[in-house]
């Protein structure tokens, strides 16, 4: 087995196929579906059209019935007529919303394609509403529009807006950027604590009471690869990012922990000593779960920007051969370490022309195609096994204890195909 460091460049030098055409992806608004659960004191108000509301409803599935803390202020004909009117309308809808939901401490005004095309100034609205509701409620704005953001970039855009509103501070400490399911977050904090990293701040923070500052003594480690804009603004505010592969699989998690440890002067041996039982568990679980994946060829279509780190995990820890790794956006500052560890260079593609990409899928006939729900069933009907990608965003997949589950998510479609004895027409 190769160890990190043996491959110095991996596929960092591989030329990237850049494509422009029909994108079969979600827009950034979809991020609200998991963001609102990570920030229980927040409400996400999309200013958009019926399409935006319908998208959220379709993507959120049954979650929509659980009184979610998000909604859409649907633009109507009259809103399109005059702009001053629209600002008044936002105030009115927000007043109504906040009077109904006394528990809300943070309100996000979320821009959409229609609101951006008519140049509805949500920043101005947020400022005005902030003046009205401060200090009880903080009003922020970000964009989740499809013309600006792809799927998980909505979270990026939200976190960047939060960082912009944070106070400055010289206090030293580590910030972990990227939303995670609670259970995974707890595991992460425990791991960091045990290797000796204290005072960890989380972005997004669960409550507005956990507000913290950013400054020249802030170090930032990323747990999600899609946070390009957040990365940039943190760097601009003086924070120091930790370069590391993403904590997927045993190797990714170990390398991630070691990169942080090294930043805080903690030895690699200490990390090894503390994490040994977890590493063994993870390796065993991955070995078991990834058995159907060994030697199989995988094609990843662009979706969430998780593709590069996942491809690294699949090729290095599950023995898969990469055919093409597509990503909606390749942020080398963030996924550089993962790229460096992908050995036999696959096709790397950024952006999408879905018809051409499907032609490549059909020509390659991979054993597994990782794609969105709009493509999965049609490809299955063509006899290609698929793993729908959205599950990878919702499921707990980070760190040691989830490594086996992560491999299992990819293995399940192949195991299922092996089990089914009646052929679909």
């Amino acid at each position, binding site marked *: 087995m190769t160890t990190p460091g043996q491959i110095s460049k991996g596929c960092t030098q591989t030329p990237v196929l850049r494509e422009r*055409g*029909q*994108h*079969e*992806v*979600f*827009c*950034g*608004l979809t991020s609200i579906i998991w963001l609102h659960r990570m920030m229980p004191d927040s409400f996400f*108000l999309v*200013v958009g*059209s*019926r*399409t935006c*509301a*319908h*998208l959220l*409803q*379709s*993507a959120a599935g*049954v979650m*929509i*019935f659980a009184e*979610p803390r*998000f*909604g*859409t*202020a*649907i*633009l*109507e*004909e009259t*809103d*399109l007529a005059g702009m001053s009117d*629209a600002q008044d*309308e*936002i105030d*009115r*809808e927000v007043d*109504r919303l906040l009077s109904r939901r006394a528990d809300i401490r943070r309100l996000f005004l979320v821009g959409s*394609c*229609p609101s*951006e*095309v*008519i140049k509805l100034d949500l920043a101005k609205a947020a400022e005005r509403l902030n003046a009205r509701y401060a200090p009880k409620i903080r009003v922020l704005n970000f964009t989740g*529009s*499809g*013309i*600006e953001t*792809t799927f998980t970039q909505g979270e990026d855009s939200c976190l960047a807006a939060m960082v912009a509103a944070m106070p400055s501070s010289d206090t030293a400490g580590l910030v972990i950027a990227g939303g995670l399911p609670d259970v995974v977050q707890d595991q992460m904090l425990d791991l960091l604590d045990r290797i000796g990293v204290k005072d960890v701040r989380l972005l997004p923070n669960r409550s507005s009471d956990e507000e913290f500052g950013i400054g020249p003594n802030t170090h930032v480690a990323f747990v999600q690869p899609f946070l390009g804009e957040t990365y940039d603004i943190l760097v601009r505010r003086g924070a120091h990012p930790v370069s590391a592969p993403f904590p997927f699989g045993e190797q990714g998690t170990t390398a991630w922990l070691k990169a942080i440890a090294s930043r805080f002067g903690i030895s690699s041996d200490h990390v090894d000593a503390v994490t040994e039982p977890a590493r063994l568990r993870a390796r065993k679980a991955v070995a078991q779960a990834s058995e159907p994946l060994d030697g199989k060829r995988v094609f990843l279509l662009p979706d969430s920007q998780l593709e590069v780190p996942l491809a690294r995990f699949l090729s290095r820890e599950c023995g898969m051969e990469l055919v093409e790794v597509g990503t909606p956006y390749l942020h080398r500052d963030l996924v550089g370490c993962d790229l460096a560890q992908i050995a036999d260079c696959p096709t790397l593609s950024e952006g999408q022309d879905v*018809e051409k990409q499907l032609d490549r899928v059909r020509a390659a006939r991979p054993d597994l195609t990782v794609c*969105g*729900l*709009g*493509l*999965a*069933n*049609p490809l*299955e*009907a063509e006899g290609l096994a698929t793993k729908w990608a959205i599950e990878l965003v919702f499921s707990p997949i980070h760190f040691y204890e989830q490594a086996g589950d992560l491999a299992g998510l990819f293995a399940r479609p192949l195991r299922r195909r092996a089990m089914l004895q009646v052929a679909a027409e």
Partner: protein
Amino acid sequence: MKLSVWTYEGPPHVGAMRVATAMNGLHYVLHAPQGDTYADLLFTMIERRNHRPPVTYTTFQARDLGSDTAKLFRDACQAAYERFKPQAMIVGASCTAELIQDDPGGLGAALGLPIPVIPLELPSYQRKENFGADETFLQIVRTLAKPTDRSARVSCNLIGPTALGFRHRDDITEITALLNDMGVEVNVTAPYGATPADITRLGTAHFNALMYPETGESACRWMERTLGQPYTRTIPIGVGATKDFVEEVAALTGCEPRLDSDRLRLPWYSASVDSTYLTGKRVFIFGDGTHVATATRIAREEMGFEVVGIGCFNREMARPIRALAKDIGVEALISDDYLEVEARISNLAPELILGTQMERHIGKRLGIPCAVISAPVHVQDFPARYSPQMGVEGANVIFDTWVHPLVMGLEEHLLHMFREDPEFNDAAGPSHHAHGAKQVSDAPDPVGAQIIWLDEAERELRKVPFFVRGKARRNTEAFAEARGDSQISVETLYEAKAHYAR
């Protein structure tokens, strides 16, 4: 602006997609930003289609806004034509593209493709999904259908079924068989399964059977005017309506009004003594106008329910639903705000809700049984098994579906008689449903909080079956309040009962 969490209908371009996806050989080029492709998964996941919807999206981005988007649209049209070689194309804009004013219709026509390119005007900020489907199909028919000679044998078109339609697939099968039994051939079913070439043959039929007014009425009106084809007004959902439909077809064609009712079981099932307990069950009905109107008739005339409220979310059907409500002496609720629907249901406290996916969830929250009668629906209502709503088999399916969520007759008795027993206590719920389902909350209303229930009255109230207890509590409180009473005794309880007695 209007704050919304749940929408009963999508935007109109989703309606256009429902038509395009239903058809073969037609391609839709949609001027839309990245992200609008989410609608594909409605078809691939909810309806479980095994191919992608025939839709090409231009996927414009912020950096394209300016002069570039029109070129993007032309290129997308050209590429879609070359790749898919459709018989015809429809072109239009989604809500965002409507704002940038590129005129997809004009751009599409200017390409000079050797096939019909049909422009769609779908006002996204005024209208919704059903309008989008109806209008799209009208434009396709207007462009392609031509007057032709009638077929030698009596034939008709089935008009209105689309992709993502509630039970459209099986309704087509059922109605086709029913018409065949009368000696009427189906010429073209459209848009479901039709090609643009089929649309050109619509004029061959002697008449149109309008299956779903929401998605086919405009086209039927146009064909009546332009091709001289009458269309049927009765929607054959329910036993009575199916018989009326057969009569209507017979009157239009001169055929015998023949209905093979060998397999029709609803009337006997409904007459059998086991169904006696259904008598007067209080039902609230909500959904699209067509399914609500037909369900109302079935509920009253074929199931013996009492309909306590009806309503629809599509304002296109507001007038007939209001008229029907007036006829049966209830108030109509025309609203696309589910909170209003929930308030109405909670106020009426029915024993059964017939509605959409949303009412199913409202029912779950309030502990009221519910059966689904209308779109929007989730994946479980695109079943693998044959389950039409129309015709003879449709009536059988409806009987089973509506009765299933109710506590069964004998079970209801047991629950009432042995309610102190652990097996049959109120919280146990129907035996065939998962345990732990919430029951109707019979906690005092905040409104009635100033009225005090005397202990004895409270105990008496507990004897009222749980599924009507909430209603009884509310009625009694309203009655007491109207009389100016500040406390409720057993006496008040029974006076109120007498007052509201049917």
